[in-house]
């Protein structure tokens, strides 16, 4: 019962949704949307699970004075203040009826002044990592690596005015060899072909994976195939 019934749920839900996709008539027509909405709601319940877990871990760290415990206080503080600000809509110009992220509320202030700079800075680290990764990875070591390097290099150059300047001598029939044009061609032709092959492959992978799930063949997500 503990193992079989869940698998039955997966099987039935999966098949019903697939069939429903081809039946516009009620009650099937909106089933996909309804189930997607159910998922969103379950996900909000899960926040209680996740937030509770986060809270407990850091509280334990502080209580037991584990390594780096003072930083756990920072996490707990940020979490509690933000949660209170959002749930009770503290300082919201529209009161409890206002939009949770209304401009002027404490929630929005914290979002704009703490959340946003942190998020944007973390994202900006990518500019540096893209530099170090290309320095290390783009070496002409093997045939494959050389092809990777050449394609990357043409596109890199082609996206700068430098690339245009370098090859602006190629005019007339040879103009397709100008780096920006070559870049466009690589993006529109071989890149597109590769992307398509990957996409078709992924689609088949998803179909096969979904089928394995709704036939009950793949059950590891519920703790493996042993009973």
């Amino acid at each position: 019962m503990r193992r079989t019934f869940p698998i039955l749920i997966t099987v039935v839900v999966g098949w019903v949704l697939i069939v429903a996709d081809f039946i516009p008539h009620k009650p099937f027509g909106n089933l996909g949307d309804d189930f997607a909405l159910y998922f969103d709601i379950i996900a909000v319940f899960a926040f209680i699970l996740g937030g509770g877990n986060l809270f407990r871990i850091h509280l334990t760290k502080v209580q037991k004075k584990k390594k780096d415990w003072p930083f756990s206080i920072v996490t707990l503080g940020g979490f509690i203040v933000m949660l209170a600000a959002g749930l009770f809509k503290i300082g919201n110009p529209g009161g409890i009826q206002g939009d949770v992220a209304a401009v002027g509320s404490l929630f929005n202030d914290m979002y704009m002044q703490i959340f946003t700079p942190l998020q944007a800075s973390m994202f900006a680290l990518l500019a540096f990592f893209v530099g170090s990764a290309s320095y290390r990875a783009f070496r002409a070591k093997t045939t494959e690596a050389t092809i990777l390097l050449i394609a990357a290099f043409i596109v890199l150059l082609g996206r700068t005015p430098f690339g245009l300047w370098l090859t602006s001598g190629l005019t007339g029939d040879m103009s397709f060899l100008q780096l920006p044009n070559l870049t466009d061609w690589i993006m529109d032709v071989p890149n597109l072909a590769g992307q398509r092959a990957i996409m078709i492959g992924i689609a088949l992978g998803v179909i096969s994976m979904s089928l394995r799930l709704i036939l009950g063949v793949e059950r590891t997500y519920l703790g493996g195939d042993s009973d």
Partner: protein
Amino acid sequence: MTNGAMKKQSLVERLQYIDRRIIFAFIAVAVIVPLLIGAQLKEKTTPIVQAMFDNVEGLPEGSRVLLSYDYGPTTAPEIQPMVDAMVRHCAERKCKMYMMAVWATGHNLTGETIEGVLRPDFPDLEYGVDFINLGYKAGNQGLIRLILVDFKTMYSTDANNIAIDDFPMMENITSLRNFDLIVSFGGGFPGIKEWIQFAGDPGNIPIGGGCTAVGAPNLYPYYPSQLVGLLGGAKGAAEYENALIIAYPKYEDYPMAGMSLMVSQTVAHIVIIFFIVFGNVLYFILRARGMTKEGLGGVR
């Protein structure tokens, strides 16, 4: 990197495993210096951007354009310039603009367009008549599926909780099919791809997109059959700005966000190209001396 202290290494060998922090420093300088100087860079408009521009240019007065803000502050430096340029264009074309967000983070950014572009440069346009901010609704692709058939159930109020029926421009909006063009701005999930899958394809509605340069290559396969045009990254924004200047010469000397962004990008880009060349030159010198270590950072 390596702990090369063990044995004495040649200069070339040590440079091969250059501390990545040196690369980081070079990139930082390359970005900061052009910013301090301040400059703009024009970009030739490519066909895929021109297609987007022509589509908007071809919209008759009063057409309904849905703009979906599917991005957050992190990608805003890249995407906001193109949003601004397109909103400016829509305003010039006298289209009705409906702003919404499938991303929670897009909520705040709609205000930036309204305060940054529409209010100062188009003071005649009236909220609720010419443009409206519908705000964020949860539900990701599910939301798109729902509003394809039934708009008003999800959007019964605008972002300021005013009933939707109070606005003249919301009359006759019952489903996404009532829009002449939907433009989604954003590179992640849900984003342009979901708009195509859940609105464009099933509803036969023209979808346009503006996304990060990263997301762009994945969306190329959808152009032109499922996507009317696509702006990729700051370059896409600069190209759109260029098309806008050609069509509306009054913007010739106007400060354009996309074009100034391009300068720092280009310089830092060249720094990275330099490092790739440098790394390969070192590699070939070492290989000539027979001192390479295979497999490091290898490809698969």
